[in-house]
């Protein structure tokens, strides 16, 4: 009887001895990723990165307060060894390749808790700064990294900031320094003549003035309109928001200065129009938005200017003009759910119900079909997590909230070419 009782326990002990805890992802796996990427096998490298599932690479979304995990430590060691091997077979510096792969890791795993992504980004930025080349590849790396940050939930990483809650949540001195300095500050220091970095910095500051998180609504314009409909009741949050909103005049001034740059003018006027509309300065908003179309051939900027004009005109109760503006926006971006919904809304309120139904029906079908399959896991109701679509890439209004994220495929292509 004693033997029968002891047998299961013995089995357990044996199992523990012969099956030690597995590393989160192996160093040889990391080396293979880097080597494939350096050799131009991007899809092969990314396939391996994507296969490193959440349990191996990180823990739950809520687990952001734990110290750096094995996955990141393995990454640091493996990349250090790989870089030490010398120049890549293509002749390009391995540091920049490794830094680019770090961006791919962040993109491939949107489910990573923000402060885990931050570790990879901080590491990558440090390694690029430690080996500055001033090359086109380096400039493209900064452009891409900024866009990746804008795509993620880490947009607050871009501008310099003072000590606040987010800084206190960082897990290492390096991460903390990166957050305080602001990633885009490093880009500007490395390439002071690159106007897009200056624009990114201003827009990152503008993003910090967003009050949408307090509204609970997706309709970004309603949610972000000032003065706020539902100011936070928490006094610390209210104070923080007041401090950030007080920065708006300086942000607008900096944007006005950037509007003199011919290449940036359309985008800057669009953002100035947006900020004016947020503050219910309708005439001023229209003046800015009217300058966008004549200044660009970029369909993205043009359709957004029509959309924002529609919003402003709607708020001015100029319904027919709003309908015309929304129509122009929808013509340029037929899959944009925001555009079709707002147009349908105005048509319905104009008594054109059938027309409204046709627009909305068609819009909902086409936008659902075009939805991006990239997901991240977030808590959804009653504490349960579920996959949530990051955005609808066919909707320019969604993309507007994410800066240069829409340009990531272009930047990555150019960066990879520069690294070959």
């Amino acid at each position, binding site marked *: 009887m004693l033997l029968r009782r002891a047998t299961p326990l013995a089995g357990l002990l044996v199992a523990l001895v012969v099956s030690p805890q597995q590393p989160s992802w192996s160093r040889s796996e990391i080396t293979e990723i880097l080597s494939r990427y350096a050799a131009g096998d991007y899809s092969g490298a990314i396939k391996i990165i994507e296969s490193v599932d959440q349990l191996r690479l990180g823990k739950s979304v809520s687990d952001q307060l734990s110290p750096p995990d094995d996955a990141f430590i393995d990454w640091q060691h493996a990349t250090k060894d790989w870089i030490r091997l010398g120049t890549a077979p293509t002749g390009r510096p391995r540091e920049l390749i490794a830094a680019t792969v770090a961006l791919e890791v962040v993109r491939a795993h949107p489910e990573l808790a923000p402060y885990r992504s931050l570790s990879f980004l901080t590491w990558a930025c440090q390694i690029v700064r430690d080996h500055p080349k001033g090359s086109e590849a380096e400039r493209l790396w900064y452009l891409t990294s900024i866009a990746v940050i804008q795509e993620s939930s880490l947009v607050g990483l871009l501008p310099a900031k003072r000590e606040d809650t987010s800084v206190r949540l960082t897990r290492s001195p390096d991460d903390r320094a990166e957050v305080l300095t602001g990633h885009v500050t490093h880009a500007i220091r490395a390439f002071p003549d690159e106007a897009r970095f200056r624009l990114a910095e201003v827009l990152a500051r503008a993003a910090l003035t967003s009050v949408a998180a*307090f*509204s*609970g*609504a*997706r*309709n970004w314009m*309603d949610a972000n309109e000032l003065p706020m*409909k*539902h100011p936070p*009741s928490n006094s610390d949050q209210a104070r923080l928001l007041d401090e950030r909103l007080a920065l708006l005049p300086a942000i607008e001034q900096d944007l006005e200065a950037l509007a003199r740059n011919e290449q940036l003018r359309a985008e800057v006027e669009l953002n100035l129009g947006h900020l004016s509309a947020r503050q219910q300065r309708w005439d001023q908003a229209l003046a800015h938005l009217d300058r966008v179309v004549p200044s660009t051939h970029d369909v993205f900027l043009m359709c957004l200017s029509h959309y924002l004009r529609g919003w402003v005109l709607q708020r001015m109760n100029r319904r027919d003009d709003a309908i015309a503006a929304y129509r122009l926006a929808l013509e340029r971006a037929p899959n944009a*759910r*925001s555009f079709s*919904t*707002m147009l*349908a*809304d105005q048509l*319905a*309120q104009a*008594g054109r*119900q*059938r027309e*409204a*139904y046709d627009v*909305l*029906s068609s819009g*909902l*079908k086409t*936008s*659902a079909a075009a*939805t991006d399959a990239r997901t991240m896991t977030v808590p*959804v*109701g*009653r504490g*349960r997590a*579920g*996959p*949530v*679509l990051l955005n609808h890439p066919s909707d320019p*209004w969604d993309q507007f909230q994410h800066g240069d994220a829409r340009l990531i495929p272009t930047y990555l292509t150019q960066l990879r070419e520069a690294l070959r």
Partner: protein
Amino acid sequence: MRSSQLGRALLWAIIAMAVTPGVSARQTTFRAFADLVSVDVSVKNGRVPVPGLKTSDFEVLDNGVPQQLEAVSIEAVPIDVTLLVDLSGSVVPNVSAFKADVEKFVTLLRPTDRVRIVSFSTDVNEDVPMQAPSAALRPNWTNVNGMTSLNDGVLFALLWPETTDRRHLIIAFTDGMDTYSTARNESIPAVAGRVEAVLHAVLVEPPGPMPDRYKDSVDALREAVRLTGGETHRVSRAVDDFTQIVADFRASYMLRYAPKGVDRAGWHALTVRLNRPGNFTIRSRQGYSGG
């Protein structure tokens, strides 16, 4: 044309359509002014619908001006039902059980009715297009998750093209907390006030206190319900809730009149009263736009 002449003309028009082969009342267009205004009216004594009311029992004021009514037999007018379901995860804890409830509800509708099932979470989907009810109708729901595009879903439901030979009932099943729509909260009652559909909302209580920032969308939904003459209900069991709403809707009255003595353009506030004593609750749409 004087009102008595207009009334006789309308009567002959209706008779002519009834006896003319191949032409049914369905093909007559009734719209405001050139035609007739339709008002769905629910009359209850407590929670029980009041049966057997006649045209003469009702008084309808259009912008304060009494109107001459023509009632249509409610039994003869089939119903289009739009079931609008919140699948965002915070509302439906068990999608399989809820799906079974919905499928059962569909089988309880009449053959002359039609049903459409629209769900929303991050997206708004017409899972089952408007069609005759059958046991084979099954929404393809496998899980619940995502954000809540309530306003967009309600807008889509409200805009269903109206026809004069059918009544449109919308049943929304949701907790009312919109987190993802493009349509503004203000738009929902604004559009609801312009359509002939009747909107009912079955509201699921959130697990904890509702944050202030979500109350606007709940309030907008409630206002839209009120403007269409519908009701807001607290959920018990989905199939029972839906079935009761349809039964009450069938027991309501459809009043029609050709507007007289009022300007065409602009908003027309409607007042519906009963010409008999009693403690009744009367619900109807609050008005319409004359264009």
